């Protein structure tokens, strides 16, 4: 296989990573943008989605397609409920103080990780993909399921954009993000908006996790990489900018794919991590964001 096909393969793999990453990071960005808090447990909610996907698919049994669809519906709903509960019981009571929220979500991270280890175990388990078709390209065969991840993610991102910009719910969210007090003064139930946003953010991560499970297995420690990469995407893309999030996810996903293919994955992560830290230090509003108001 020559350099060209190798590069194509790397870019395709990178696009799959980007597709999953964009969804996960959009969840983090939404929570960060509207509520001004950092959810450190976001990666564990992702992990919870993956583990639940395995549980649901196993419980349903039957054809892989049926199990997968059931997982795609049920797992995010449960994760959303868990997130809403955490928001009600903890975040609301510390009044969304940024530092207290960070410490509390670190606590949530440990709790979720330990519960997954206790009840699911330390093994990595796959969920069978809903269909098993290999597209024969001239140089190599490529899984059609991976391409369907890219398509699904694109549809979901477009849908999120439509909801945010063209519906009443989106308007309420944006109003709360723009100015919490004024929104409250205009009769918007800010508390309920926060709970909903936190749940939706977690559900986006869970959907991304269910999509990735057929190709990369569910494991109780799988939450750390998505968390750090989502941070990276949100920072590089700029806060609350959906377009920035998508562009940054593409940038990070594809460069991760290419560097991992030609160099070592550890080096890829090392470079990405340092690059993100530097962006945050020298351009805190993100590469695509506007300067802070």
């Amino acid at each position, binding site marked *: 296989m020559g350099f060209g096909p190798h590069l194509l393969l790397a870019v395709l793999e990178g696009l799959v990573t980007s597709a999953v990453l964009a969804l996960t990071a959009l969840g983090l960005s939404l929570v960060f943008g509207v509520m001004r808090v950092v959810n450190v447990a976001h990666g564990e909610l992702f992990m919870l989605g993956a583990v639940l996907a395995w549980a649901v698919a196993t419980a349903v049994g039957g054809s892989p397609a049926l199990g997968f669809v059931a997982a795609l519906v049920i797992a995010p709903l449960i994760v959303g409920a868990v997130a809403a509960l955490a928001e009600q019981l903890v975040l609301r009571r510390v009044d969304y103080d940024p530092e207290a929220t960070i410490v509390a979500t670190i*606590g949530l991270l440990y*709790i979720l990780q330990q519960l997954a280890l*206790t009840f699911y175990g330390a093994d990595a388990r796959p969920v069978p993909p809903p269909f098993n078709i290999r597209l024969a390209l001239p140089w190599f065969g490529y899984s059609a399921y991976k391409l369907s991840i890219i398509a699904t993610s694109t549809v979901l991102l477009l849908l999120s954009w439509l909801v945010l910009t063209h519906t009443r719910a989106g308007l309420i969210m944006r109003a709360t993000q723009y100015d919490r007090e004024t929104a409250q003064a205009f009769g918007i139930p800010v508390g309920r908006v926060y709970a909903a946003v936190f749940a939706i953010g977690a559900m986006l991560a869970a959907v991304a996790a269910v999509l990735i499970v057929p190709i990369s297995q569910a494991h109780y420690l799988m939450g750390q990489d998505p968390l750090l990469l989502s941070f*990276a995407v949100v920072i590089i893309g700029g806060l609350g900018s959906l377009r920035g999030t998508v562009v940054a996810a593409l940038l990070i996903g594809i460069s991760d794919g290419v560097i991992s293919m030609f160099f070592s994955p550890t080096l890829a992560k090392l470079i990405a*991590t340092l690059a993100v*830290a*530097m962006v945050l230090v020298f351009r805190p509003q993100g590469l695509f964001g506007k300067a802070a108001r």
Partner: protein
Amino acid sequence: MNGSARLWLLHAAVVALLVALNFLLPAYHHGLMARILVLATFAMGYNLTFGYGGLLSLGHAMFFAAGLYGAGLGIQHLGLGVPAAFLAGLACGAALALLAGLLALRTTGVAFMIVTLMFSQAFHLAILYFSAFTGGDQGLVLRPQQRRIETALGTLDLTDPTTRYLTALALFAVVLFAMLAIVRSGFGRVLVAIRENEERARMLGYDTFASRLAALVTSGTICAAAGAAYGLLFGYVGANFASVQYSILPLLWVLLGGAATTLGPLFGTVFMYYLIDIASGYTSAYMLAVGVILILLVLFFRKGLLGTLRERWLRWLP
């Protein structure tokens, strides 16, 4: 008795108690306590940034690991003796803290937390990437003959439990009194002033960036001292000490003991370490305890053990 003498006496009494424990503790707890003293030193270093400086860092594992690897690699590859290796660890921690501080202190709040987290993560990945030198995931084991100090008076063997305990205690005591001196000095008060109101401190003519940088470098050096001591005393240099978990643990210990109290880190570390030790006797799910305690602390007990004590009864506690 004036206030100052009372404070020094209190801290000296704590150290004296710890010396007495050397002769009283059974072997298992003696070993555990030696470890706790080193980790409490790590927590005191963290407390300077987090408690007094008001900067929530999620990257202090890199300073601990810089000391650990600075000392460990110095012995393994350069054939340094124990004192030189310890100093090499300190130098690595101080240099890293200076570099990290110059960059990370351009940000504050949530951004500072993420930048320190990212730096620490990069440091961890670098240790894994250069596995030819660092031993990667496996880490390095320092042999007992590499952990001896030859002096004119005889050999100091760091593998001996009593020597180990007293060395750990010596480091702890030096750092404890240094912390007491720092927080009662003008520099310590400026730090607290910046934490409480940065704008006002700047208006009064203080260079807030320089003060914070000095605090971070001091804090990083103390953490590196703890890391170097840990490697030399317990003979293991491993990459997991650079992981995120070791940035979160000092935060937990300090929060539990009481942020911005001199003795809080010790009590927090002892309490948490024993809690996990006891809990792991009953269940392997000790991380659940860590998580639940973090949340409970944030919800109901924001000032920690000594912080609450100070607020209610002992206003004079530093």
